[in-house]
């Protein structure tokens, strides 16, 4: 992709579009407030580089449109383009440490399991055994 991407104009456009998808509410910040159009976008595109080219085209196109109407017409009539935009926005949003903290998500962290002791479902499993007719043999 030639030139500097994303430009400040493109980031600004993305911030406007992103806030229509992920607005402030239920105690959660809007997308632009956590930097979806800034460093988080760069991390998002690094992980999913195929989003970059169609997203760039969308942002260039959106500069000439009213943001709310643009997003809604994508959602209604251009599902593939809407998927590009929403994936970039949602993907970047959940990379935010602030957002993760607010939803109580530590990430996919390792957490050792223990197989010591008896599981607490054995009484239910006994009932499976009692009511099941057993498998049938077929010679």
């Amino acid at each position: 992709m030639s030139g500097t991407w994303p430009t400040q104009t493109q980031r600004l456009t993305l911030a406007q579009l992103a806030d229509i998808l992920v607005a402030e509410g239920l105690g959660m910040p809007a997308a632009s407030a956590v930097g979806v159009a800034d460093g988080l976008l760069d991390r998002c595109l690094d992980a999913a580089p195929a989003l970059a080219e169609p997203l760039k085209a969308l942002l260039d196109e959106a500069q000439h449109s009213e943001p709310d109407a643009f997003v809604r017409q994508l959602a209604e009539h251009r599902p593939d383009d809407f998927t590009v935009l929403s994936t970039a926005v949602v993907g970047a949003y959940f990379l935010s440490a602030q957002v993760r903290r607010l939803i109580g998500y530590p990430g996919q962290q390792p957490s050792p399991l223990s197989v010591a002791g008896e599981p607490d479902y054995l009484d239910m499993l006994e009932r499976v055994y009692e009511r099941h007719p057993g498998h049938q043999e077929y010679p």
Partner: protein
Amino acid sequence: MRRPQPGVAADVVIVGSGASGAVAAAHLAAAGFEVVCLEQGDWTGPADYMSDRPEAELAWIEKWSPDPNTRRGPADYPLTGEADVRPVMYNGVGGGLVQWAAMWQPLLASDFKARTLDGVADDWPINWSDLAEPYAQVAREMSVSGLGDDPALPELEPYPNPPIPIGRIGMAAARGMDRLGWHWWPGSNAIASRSHRSLQACQRRGTCMMGCPENAKATPSLTHWPSALAAGARLVTGARVAQIPIDERGRARGAVYLDRDGVEHLQPAQVVILAANAVGTARLLLLSASPRFPDGLANSSGLVGRRLMQHPYRTVTAVCEDFLDSWQGPWGQSIYSLEFAETHPDRDFVRGTKWMVMPHGGPMFAAAEYQEAHRHEGFDAVWGPAFHRAGAEVFGHAFTWGIQAEDLPEDANRVVLDPAVRDSSGLPAARIEYRVSDNTRRMLDFNVARAVEAAEAAGAASTMVRDIWPTGIGHVLGTTRMGDDPRCSVVDRWCRAHDVANLYIIDGGVFVTGGSANPTATIMANALRVVDHMIQSRASQEVPS
């Protein structure tokens, strides 16, 4: 140890290094065979995994997508065509087991007798008992964790590791099944619940399908290739097989492959084993058409590529008020149910389904699930301020019943060569023609309704139901079926091609019916059964001139 040299005839050349190819390579090499395996992809290891990075969910949509048309890796070949369900696969050392969820599920005894019991499809030429010992052996090799004695299954040798704790999601789902009086059982997975053989204990990270950084999930690069290579097998990566050439007597001479630079090589061999999955193997046989075999190699029955089966899949996600810790892994099966796996005379379909409980993954996956379920309510129901409902209501509070249906073998569901699209080596792409049958749709409708009941019995405040997934779940079966009659099967009961005496097929293509179980346990067990027979009967094996 005899390590075959490049260009020198091997005893056996195997095409594909995944579930079945790895079993064959390890056991044949251990028995003293000179083995060469040709793999079009490369090694994938912890350095490639995204599982321990915050970007893991984003990686799933592209770099780690199971769909080769999305992933577009250098080893991937295009899948074209209009299909209700498009196959997914991984092309590299380990094959689909690089990305699998590691659910380990033997077939039912009845799965081998669909014609006798239900008057549909065909019976297998083998029975469950023929796979009993191989099932036990490969379960040990794959460090399976699980609980034996499931009354819905024939008697199994105990799994080598205790079951992974079913977690809060499993307990919630099990209570629902208990209230309804329906079958459920703790999940069996090829994920080590404790350190075992080459695997470390699971750390419940929950990103199993993007590679396990703890090396707790069984994959052939850990479980089979080290011993195969130590025993002398040679694994050639970046080797895309283009043709199986034949001699004047119609015997396979080896495999012709293109390396990464497009240079053509012949790997001669006494015996050829195809293990490239039910799409790749069918494609290769069709690519190997010749004047002697004008419709494709081993295709006198006309069945090569036909009867593709894929386990069409739907989900019901239960959203509960209780916190269920539901991004926590492993992303195998927490519990499973075979309540609706068998044909029942009161239902308007034959055969059945397997259900399994899984976590919902991270917040991006949970949000996607919410949006999919509520999209019909309009933009403002899922976007804007409402976007956060997914986080507030679903994230951490949901579990998913996955429902995989047995799709019956139908000739029209098939793999053919695409007349126009080619892969990066210039070989025709695989074109998929696949429709979900009315029987399968009725089966899934019935089961989804039952799964909603199960979710409600588990205390779900709401449920999210998804229609048939348009991309498959990595189960491709049936395109080179086995049977005793050469007129209506491609390989015999020992998976040797009826038409070519030194050509074997050991991937899921040989399945006569698909059952509803996740197929890897059976693919690996059958591969072991076949190679054990090859080893026993090596003296009588016909070879090329």
